[in-house]
């Protein structure tokens, strides 16, 4: 068991959040595969919950989060309502984006979650800009941007991180490294010693953490967030984890070496590891089981409720495009 610096209450909260994320996504997959209610692609973060749970414990509502196509967990952990999220995945009224974005564009500005993004790496510059805006406005909250290992090979990685470095912005960039870029092993298409070295070369303090260890993520991200709130410059966190599923819920992930996934899941599932932490702290198996069942029950209900919600009114197809020259007045 790692040195945690957390009490049981915190450790338990981490597990609860990870169980809720997993249950949410398991139900999202059911919605897609069993119920055929999700027509677009969903990218589950099953196996990667530690980062979402660990980092978000330190963020306030006014702090800002940006994420990727694999962003359900981050969004939920930032405080979004799972029912609004599930409605979004099903394209329904009351979805957090009114059913217009879907899984890849999940966002809840009310809790400071400014969006997942369908373009790999695109949020890196946007997040830097959100931090820039905060600085211009003289506000004191911070920004966290989470992206994948694949994004470190896109130009915006350099441009956005350099930007944060030059303007000394209150932002934490997190590379949630599940070791795959879709079906390609990221190490096979990535030069050099790794993403942390890239960030350092751009002037950021960089930390590497076991991204399957929720306690460790919570601890180091807590320290980083404290530095940011204290006026420290931008930082970088590299959290190594593993994607239990394929790239999308449709993808069996058959390109992975025989046995790799099984081994990783057996050894490094962040939920199993956090359960072990709690058992070692003295919590009973029954408590853990209850946490699990509650999360499952919550998300079962969420899915049922979302499925019972109507599709958006047709007029929504023309709303919120622009004020001037809006298609509501002039569509052609």
């Amino acid at each position, binding site marked *: 068991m790692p040195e945690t610096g957390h009490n049981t209450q915190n450790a338990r909260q981490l597990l609860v959040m990870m169980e809720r994320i997993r249950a949410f996504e398991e139900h999202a997959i059911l919605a897609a595969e069993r119920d055929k209610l999700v*027509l677009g692609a969903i990218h589950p973060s099953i196996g990667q919950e530690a980062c979402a749970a660990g980092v978000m414990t330190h963020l306030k509502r006014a702090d800002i989060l940006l994420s990727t196509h694999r962003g359900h967990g981050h969004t939920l952990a930032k405080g979004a309502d799972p029912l609004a999220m599930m409605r979004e995945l099903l394209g329904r009224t009351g979805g957090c984006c009114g059913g*217009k974005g879907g899984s890849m564009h999940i966002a809840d500005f009310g809790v400071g979650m400014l969006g997942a993004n369908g373009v790999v790496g695109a949020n890196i510059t946007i997040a830097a800009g959100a931090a820039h805006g905060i600085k211009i406005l003289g506000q004191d909250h911070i920004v966290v941007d989470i992206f994948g290992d694949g994004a470190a090979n896109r130009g915006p990685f350099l441009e956005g991180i350099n930007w944060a470095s030059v303007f000394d912005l209150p932002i934490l960039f997190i590379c949630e490294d599940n070791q795959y870029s879709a079906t390609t092993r990221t190490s096979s298409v990535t030069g050099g010693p790794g993403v942390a070295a890239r960030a350092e070369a751009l002037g950021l303090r960089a930390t590497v953490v076991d991204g399957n260890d929720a306690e460790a993520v919570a601890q180091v991200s807590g320290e980083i967030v404290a530095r940011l709130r204290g006026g420290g410059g931008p930082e970088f966190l590299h959290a190594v984890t593993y994607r239990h599923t394929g790239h999308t819920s449709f993808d069996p992930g058959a390109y992975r070496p025989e046995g790799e996934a099984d081994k990783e899941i057996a050894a490094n599932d962040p939920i199993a590891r956090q359960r072990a932490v709690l058992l070692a702290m003295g919590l009973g198996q029954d408590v853990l089981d209850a946490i699990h069942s509650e999360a499952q029950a919550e998300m079962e209900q969420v899915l049922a409720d979302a499925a019972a919600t109507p599709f958006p009114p047709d007029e929504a*197809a023309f709303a919120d495009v622009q004020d001037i020259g809006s298609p509501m007045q002039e569509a052609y």
Partner: protein
Amino acid sequence: MVKMTYVEASRLAVQEAMTADETVWCVGEDLGRGSVFGQYLGLQAEFGKDRVVDTPISEAAIMGAAFGAAMVGTRPIVEMRFSDFALCATDELVNQIAKARFMFGGQSRAPMVIRKPIGLWRSSAAQHSQSLESWYVHIPGLVVLCPSTPQDNYSMMKAAIACDDPVVYLEHKNIWGLEGEVDTSLEVEIGAASRRREGDDVTIVSWSNTANLSVEAAETLAGQGISAEVIDLRALWPWDKQMVLDSVRKTGRLVVAHEAVAVGGFGAEVVATVAEHGEALKGPVRRLGAPRSLVAYAPNLEDKMRVTVDMIVTAAKETLGK
């Protein structure tokens, strides 16, 4: 004649071209696993990792590097995955690839096929559904192709690979599984449209998947006693003005239909060209395209962006005053 799907057709064309010419190679993300839609399935096993190259997620580098490799004498086939992501490589395509030969006074060539799957698929939302063919037509230096059938996706891919100009090759994401007979000996001349159906009453000009919908519309119209001629442009630059003008001269009525946003779409170019040529029309012109709004995730909202068979039928009847 062999029966195959749209995706199989272009895959076969690529495979044959790679066999015939060692300098042809493919470059893009996840190609070793066939890419997103199976366009490259089996090719890495056959030609090796050096000719079917798995890349980092670096669209700008994929485009730029392929161009550099083309300048030194190879013939890359560049995969952009979704045409939307190709926007990450716009400088490379528009400022570099399209202009190099001219800027360098003819010293360079860029024989490249740049594949950018376009179009509405299913619940893919605003960043995975665009059709921006009119952008590329507006850029001197580029050839722009939009195949709509397995036969064309075979023959036009062959022609594109053989072409010494950079070709923006826009396959439609919704018809990978479309089946059809393919005659592998059939050559298509780039710039020649395909008259998908002959008719006398109204000319329907279209391309990409909307050309398939237009054929359906013509069948419906036939059932109502209206004889529609369907021209599938297939190539948007160069495009077959002559076939369109001749047909409009014959029918005296014009519908242009495409999936892209109507405002600033290539349909405007077609209508404007016909207008400039002063063809006397017997009825109002109709131009169909998406409204100037965005593609939403929810299926009912997504549908609002579609040009449908019904809409084409209605437009054709309007040109006839019906």
